[in-house]
């Protein structure tokens, strides 16, 4: 079956512009996770959804970051007024539910802010 997909695969944007990143989880997976990976760094947890609800948003780096999930499926991560330090690979993962910790990762979106 299809894995986790993310779009776009690459995004180059000018500083100050807004960007929207999309994640399509594996069908039937109720838990969805967003991570950020800067060059040479580990994964930074941003937010997780169980269904359409995000129990804890404290991992989002600033109030310029927001995420939503609709219909228990697709999720979007929005970054407003992008800054150069936002440049990173943004990874999405999904799992059957939040109690099952085996996460399946998408290929990521490489965001470059110029």
């Amino acid at each position, binding site marked *: 079956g299809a894995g986790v997909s993310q779009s776009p695969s690459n995004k180059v944007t000018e500083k100050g512009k807004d960007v929207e990143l999309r994640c399509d989880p594996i069908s039937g997976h109720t838990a969805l996770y967003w991570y950020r990976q800067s060059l040479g760094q580990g994964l930074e947890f941003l937010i997780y959804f169980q269904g359409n609800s995000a129990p804890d948003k404290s991992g989002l780096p600033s109030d310029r970051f927001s995420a939503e999930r609709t219909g228990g499926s697709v999720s979007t991560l929005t970054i407003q007024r992008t800054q150069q330090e936002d440049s990173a690979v943004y990874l999405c993962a999904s799992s059957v539910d939040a109690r099952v910790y085996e996460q399946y*990762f998408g290929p990521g979106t490489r965001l470059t802010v110029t």
Partner: protein
Amino acid sequence: EDKVVQSPLSLVVHEGDTVTLNCSYEVTNFRSLLWYKQEKKAPTFLFMLTSSGIEKKSGRLSSILDKKELFSILNITATQTGDSAVYLCALAGTYKYIFGTGTRLKVLA
């Protein structure tokens, strides 16, 4: 502050060697420790460890968790060039996953 530290940061070995990767942590209230392999972009799941002292094995890979000493190890025996990757350790809490920065393993032919 919760912390996951992996060592060594990088490692170069020859095919056939055995390697041991370390993950130590200072995390309260976690439920499981997970190991992932990251070759290009997307990490792939290797192991989930919940109980202390119980070894998990998958082919040439094995892992164990020590909740008393707060660490886990990932062993790879008879390494192959295809094992070259970054190996990530993560602690799963109630709502958060805390990843280490990884160990970059390079296996030379």
